[in-house]
């Protein structure tokens, strides 16, 4: 367990605003900021090869949950469709939430766009239809209701990162807040 965390069997919900409900027929996942913008419809995303990671997750509000099971598309698979030389990304979401990540943290089999949790379709309150899953960082980086990535040359703070939370958020280094 990372320092300062406690175990829970529940799956607490934290979000800064209302739960969005975007119809699947209007839903897309897009990657902007590369040579060409690329986007997938819901059916196209679901047709991509998926993975079923089992991972521990760690929330900055101090709960950790072990051995959670997910299904989704590796971000590596999505980025393979994009020509780019960016080093950072901002994930953007329904509801206006954003979070920033170095591409190093999104690639190499460490991050997914997840649409199933615990064997079921992902609940809206937990980020469904799809959320980012970046389990090696605090869970606010695993943006709920994710709709795409905007590739950047420089690291630009997202929503919580502009509101007092750490730019990177590594739980093993306890990077919770500004200055940690």
């Amino acid at each position, binding site marked *: 367990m990372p320092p300062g965390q406690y175990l829970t069997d*529940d799956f607490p919900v*934290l979000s800064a605003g*209302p739960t969005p409900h975007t119809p699947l027929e209007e839903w897309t996942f897009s990657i902007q900021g590369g040579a060409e913008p690329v986007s997938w419809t819901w059916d196209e995303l679901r047709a991509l090869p998926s993975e079923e990671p089992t991972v521990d997750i760690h929330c900055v509000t101090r*709960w950790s949950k072990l051995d959670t099971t997910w299904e989704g598309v590796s971000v590596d698979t999505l980025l393979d469709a994009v020509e780019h030389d960016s080093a950072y990304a901002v994930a953007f979401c329904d*509801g206006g939430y954003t979070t920033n990540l170095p591409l190093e943290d999104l690639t190499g089999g460490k991050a997914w766009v997840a649409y199933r949790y615990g064997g079921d379709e992902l609940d809206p309150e937990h980020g469904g239809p799809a959320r980012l899953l970046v389990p090696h960082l605090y869970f606010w980086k695993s943006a709920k209701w994710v709709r795409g990535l905007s590739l950047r040359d420089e690291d630009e703070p997202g929503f919580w990162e502009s*509101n007092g939370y750490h730019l990177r958020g590594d739980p093993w280094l306890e990077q919770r807040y500004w200055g940690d």
Partner: protein
Amino acid sequence: MTWLTAEIAAVNQETPRVRTLELAARGWPGHRAGQHLDLRLTAEDGYQAQRSYSIASAPGEPLALTVERLDDGEVSPYLVDEAREGDRLEVRGPIGGYFVWDGDEPQPSLLIAGGSGVVPLMAMSRHHAQIESRAPMRLVVSSRTLADVIYREELNRLTAKGDGFEVVHTLTREQPPGWTGYTRRIDPELLSEVAFPAAEAPRVYVCGSTRFVDAAADGLIEAGYEPGWIRTERFGATGS
């Protein structure tokens, strides 16, 4: 962010399950209404437990936390049942820059609290009084019974000032004889009666359990509120 030693300066039993702890923390940098802090307890054997708690006091007032006992909790039973004046613990903060009300905007504010979700909203209500804001502010508090209403006397006093601050109570489980307030959980009809008109573009702060927050936020969106006006803070089942 560094840990500060805080001494419990005063203890006030709000309800059978809820207590307010006033803390004297040398070096505390001050906070905004709605922010929270991290609290750390260290046992004699060195075992440490940390939790986040909302700050109940207005900016500039002595730091106060209001904590509800969660029976299977590791930290809250100590804070609610055992902590005494003079006990020491550690805090760091303040934390959070979004679920805050600074009082520098003219539009009405609608605050919606489920149970102990009232705590950060109380900081905003106290701040409203302290800065003598004339901006309309309405606090909707959902509690199980009258005995479970946190800050009841003080809310009555704040309402009596007639400065644009109002309180609406709903008691969801049991009501005293002669109760004229609401008697049910927050629903779209209740919200349509207590919410400011959407045309006034109110700022909304909702704090409570996930189910409570979703019911309130969805009801307001149904009433024509923009999702972007609504700021939420949720307690998980094991939130703290």
